[in-house]
């Protein structure tokens, strides 16, 4: 994949594969091109050069909503809940294939939407329950605390019935206890069959829960493998300027 912003080559020949069912991470120093990769893969940025294949299809150049309907769901770096809607509605709206979203059905066959809503409400409440957000279901999403919004992001993504969840820095700015909870939710969902790709800076979490790691630097793939091996890779260590990685290797 290649992508440039004017004179800045943000992604410069980066290439990697994620296997179905894995819990993977893409790590790398700031400016490595990770966010650009996420935006290109999910269709938010127009494709320039390179291809993206997902679940047997070439999705290069697809619109974001088409990619999402295919089963590739991405989240954003900052929590972007639908603030003016309730927590329950935040989940209801992301469910795919809603008959009631067709204009004709909405105006002339309201029963279809209502019937489907009953199913969706039941499923949404179950999901809210597993995330411990049930009590907040009728609160406006904007009134939630930062941590609750993080959980809502994940819960909402689950409702979309994803095959692959691309999480953009899900642990950024999150307190340690919540990091733990989020990590366990991700592991549980992974066991249930969702493939995960985490863009993360928190290497501790990555080491703990991920089975495959891709390291990016200056727009290219630097190395891939398990976190433990990567810590011993001199190129990777240098890329991180001998910071955290080096500490781990010695301590």
């Amino acid at each position, binding site marked *: 994949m290649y992508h440039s912003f004017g004179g800045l080559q943000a992604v410069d020949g980066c290439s990697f594969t994620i296997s179905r069912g894995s819990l993977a991470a893409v790590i790398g120093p700031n400016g490595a091109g990770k966010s650009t990769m996420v935006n290109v893969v*999910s269709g*938010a940025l127009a494709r320039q050069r390179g291809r993206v294949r997902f679940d047997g299809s070439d999705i290069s150049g697809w*619109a*974001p*909503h088409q990619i*999402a*309907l295919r089963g590739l*769901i*991405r*989240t*954003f770096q900052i929590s*972007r809940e*639908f*603030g*003016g*809607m*309730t927590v*329950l*509605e935040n989940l*209801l*709206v*992301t469910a*795919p294939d*809603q*008959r*009631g*979203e*067709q*204009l004709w*059905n*909405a*105006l002339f066959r*309201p029963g279809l*939407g209502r019937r*489907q*809503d*009953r199913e969706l*409400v*039941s499923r949404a*409440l*179950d999901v809210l*329950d597993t995330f411990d957000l*049930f*009590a907040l279901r*009728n609160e*406006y999403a904007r009134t939630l605390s930062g941590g609750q919004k993080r959980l809502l992001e994940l819960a*909402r993504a689950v409702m*979309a019935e994803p095959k692959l969840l691309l999480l953009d820095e899900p642990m950024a700015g999150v307190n340690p206890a919540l990091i733990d909870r989020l990590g366990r939710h991700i592991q549980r969902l992974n066991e249930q069959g969702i493939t995960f790709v985490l863009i993360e800076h928190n290497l501790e979490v990555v080491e703990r829960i991920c089975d495959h790691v891709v390291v990016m630097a200056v727009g290219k793939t630097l190395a891939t493998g398990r976190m433990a091996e990567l810590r011993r890779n001199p190129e990777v260590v240098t890329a991180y300027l001998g910071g955290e990685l080096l500490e781990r290797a010695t301590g």
Partner: protein
Amino acid sequence: MLLPPIIYEIATLAVFFCIYNVMTWGLNIQFGAVGILNFTYITFMAIGAYVAAVLSLPPQTPGTGVTYVLGLNWPFPLPMIMGGLAAGALGFVVGLVALKRLRSDYLAIVTLAVGSIIYTIVGNYTQLFSGWDGVVGVPEPINNWINLDLNTYEIFYVAVVLAVMLVAWFFTRRLFASPLGRTMRAVREDADVAEAFGKNTFRIRMLAMVLGCAYAGVAGALLVGYTGAFSPDGWTVGETFVIWAVLLVGGRGNIVGTMLGCFLIVVVFVEGTRFLPTGFLNPNLVATLRNMVIGGLLILTLRFRPEGILPERRRRYTEIRRASPTAVGAGAN
């Protein structure tokens, strides 16, 4: 048969109330539900009015100085339906240009520009809708069958607009309560995120645009049926401002709120001038004072109650849990 004047005043109020309701519900769909900033909403009302007018007028009589296209003498409700369709079609075209990539303020500016262009074309291209003088002598809907005298017809027309308003109310409620309405609000809240969850935000926006403009067209047709004449005076930028005031004061996203805002504004508009001493006030000043009052209401609302008098209702859903042992308080709310 002549009834006491108060009856006719109430009839006028009622007619304007119903017409403005339909109009503002259309804008509520565009802005309240989806968040589209349409600053030329009045243009779509105008198109609806003009189309309905030239469809119900007989062919133009030469020498009168009134020139217009068509003139097909169609009976009610065809001109009204065509007015709605024409406005919807125009909304579609504007939407194609403005909604594909533009957001909020850019969209607002583009709609202003479009409105300005259309206004200038209609005013100058006299063969279309008789230019700046406008069309006159538009026949009253249905009256060619029942032949009421003009006074009784005024009362009858209340029933006509009320019927249309009730139909509009019925469908608007359904729309807002449907999953489509919910998805519309999600697009309003955060279009990028909605897109990332599989919603075709362009389609949603176009739907709202076309529907809302169709409402405006129908309202315009009803208006021209009542006033019998229509000219560019009736759709200046100031008019869009009044509709926005109704929407924002009453409550965006709230259908009943719109009715409330409408009631307030229409009462001020039509009745407010009665309490001003006549004689030494020239008509232009009266219009300005009206706008000042409405502007004042709008400022107060935005300052003290920005969501409007009746804010958007929080949606609750009937909760039927299937096989979930861990929930506390599961069941219908």
